[in-house]
């Protein structure tokens, strides 16, 4: 066969979309002069004291494997951080697993609990990995749309309507990438009741929780009866600006963490020790730096939302994360065409909403993880672009 090995690729991997988005990313990468609002990570570098802790650990010769679950010192810090900030108590010895980012934690959670053919409910638009991760675990993703009218919080009724026999897991991510949506406590309570009624396991990715600008973040794991059926995922990438350290964690009931540990042990062994040491420092002394970054994100959010609305793009104010998700429906263009035109004519990169699932159609994601000056310049250009479009129409 002369297909270069193509026929060896597994069917379910073949079936994963390699959408036009990747091609769009490639175009952006080839235009270094463009202003990018497409970056899904903090523009801040990791606070120095955290980097310094990693250097110090390296200096001391910390270059070994660790316990599969992660350093116990780190798991203790995680346990008390989660208890203090989310009101849920986990045993550091048995209920906490340190992973290579929330990315890995999510993957092993799904692989640990899903049998082939199981169904997973998740809300959309969502982080790009969700649906593929479910498929890679040989399960079936069932998307539940969220909408601008609800500011992209989840509507429990829609979850209930989407439920079908065979659903085993409900995946949640608040604040949401790409919409910044959050879900208020009352609705989470209703979801929790539904999860209990239908015996669903909830996997809750709360990676943006520190970056909640309004109201208090509620973890579904903290609601009555939920801890025993929730895998809580969190990490250091966003709030502590530690994306490159590749470190995150999962907390949950012991049997589930044990199951995840098996997958983790045989695929990853453990998270890198230097990153674990850095994470300990982050949890012990990182709060002031997090607060300072959050303050800046908050101001940038207010700025970008105001500018989008002035530019004629209807934009709700995201309650968390560092993403704005303006509607581009007024322009009459689809997301990808809008983004390509914007890049081409004004050299500004934003991400088409459809990158985050079909229900992102009519929206774009603009990250405000960048300076005021760039936000101002980018939104000025977007305004000019939208003006031109409306003249043409």
């Amino acid at each position, binding site marked *: 066969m002369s297909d270069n090995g193509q026929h060896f690729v597994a069917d379910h991997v073949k079936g994963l979309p390699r959408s036009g988005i990747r091609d*769009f*990313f490639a175009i*952006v*990468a080839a*235009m*270094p002069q*463009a202003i*990018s609002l*497409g*970056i*899904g*990570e903090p523009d801040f570098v990791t606070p120095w004291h955290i980097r310094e802790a990693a250097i110090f650990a390296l200096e001391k010769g910390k270059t070994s494997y660790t316990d599969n679950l992660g350093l116990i010192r780190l798991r203790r810090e995680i346990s008390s951080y989660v208890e203090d900030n989310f009101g849920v108590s986990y045993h550091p010895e048995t209920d906490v697993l340190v992973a290579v980012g929330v990315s890995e934690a999510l993957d092993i959670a799904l692989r640990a609990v899903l049998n082939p053919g199981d169904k997973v409910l998740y809300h959309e638009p969502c*982080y*790009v*990995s969700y649906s593929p991760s479910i498929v890679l675990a040989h399960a079936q993703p069932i998307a539940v749309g969220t909408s601008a009218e609800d500011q992209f919080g989840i509507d429990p009724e829609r979850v209930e309507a989407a439920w079908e026999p065979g659903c085993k897991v409900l995946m949640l991510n608040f604040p949401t*990438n790409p919409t910044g949506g959050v879900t208020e406590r009352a609705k989470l309570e209703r979801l929790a009741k539904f999860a209990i009624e239908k015996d669903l396991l909830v996997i809750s990715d709360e990676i943006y929780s520190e970056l909640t600008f309004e109201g208090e973040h509620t973890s579904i794991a903290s609601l009555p009866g939920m801890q025993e059926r929730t895998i809580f995922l969190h990490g250091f990438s966003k709030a502590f600006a530690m994306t490159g350290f590749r470190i995150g964690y999962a907390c949950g009931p012991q049997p589930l963490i044990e199951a995840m540990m098996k997958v983790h042990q045989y695929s990853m062994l453990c998270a890198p020790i230097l990153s674990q040491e850095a994470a300990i420092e982050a949890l012990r002394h990182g709060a002031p730096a997090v607060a300072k970054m959050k303050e*800046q994100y908050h*101001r940038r959010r*207010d*700025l970008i939302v*105001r*500018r989008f609305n002035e530019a004629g793009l209807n934009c709700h104010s995201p309650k968390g994360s560092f993403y704005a998700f303006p509607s581009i429906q007024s322009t009459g263009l689809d997301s990808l065409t809008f983004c390509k035109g914007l890049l081409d004519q004004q050299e500004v*990169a934003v*991400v088409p909403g459809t*990158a985050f699932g079909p229900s992102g159609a009519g929206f774009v994601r603009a990250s405000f993880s960048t*300076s*005021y*000056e760039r936000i*101002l310049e980018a939104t000025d250009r977007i305004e000019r672009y939208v003006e031109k479009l409306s003249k043409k129409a």
Partner: protein
Amino acid sequence: MSSVLQLLLEGERLDTAQMAQVLGMSESEIEAELTRLKAEEILLGWRPVINADRAQEGNVRAVIEVKISPERDGGFDRLATRIARFDAVESCFLMSGAYDLLVFAVGNDLRDVASFVSERLSTVEGVLSTATHFMLRAYKEQGYLLLAPSDGEDKPAVSP
């Protein structure tokens, strides 16, 4: 702290219109706040933070420890102010410890600073002694690192 002042301290160069955008205030509100900050002498000026090594060849800076004798009325203030008025003095602080004033001085070259110390500073009545330390190299200036290479080039321009 006033939000305008906080924004200034973040250090991005923004004009009044841009500051108004960032803070969601009108330009006149920003102007009014700046005027107030200046009037109350909270905001003293607008000097940029520069890397002196790159900007001005031959510019020499020194820190000088100065011992002075306090006066019956006013302690150190009169003498300190008198020293601080010299153009060569960039900043001047009253210190606890082994000496009284810490003076940051600048000149075109070594001799310039030396002559300031020997002819101007030490001859002021009430100055008891001076110890001058020349600065060799700056590593950080008002929060900005000077020697660290800044590259963010490995970061992808778009990420999920």
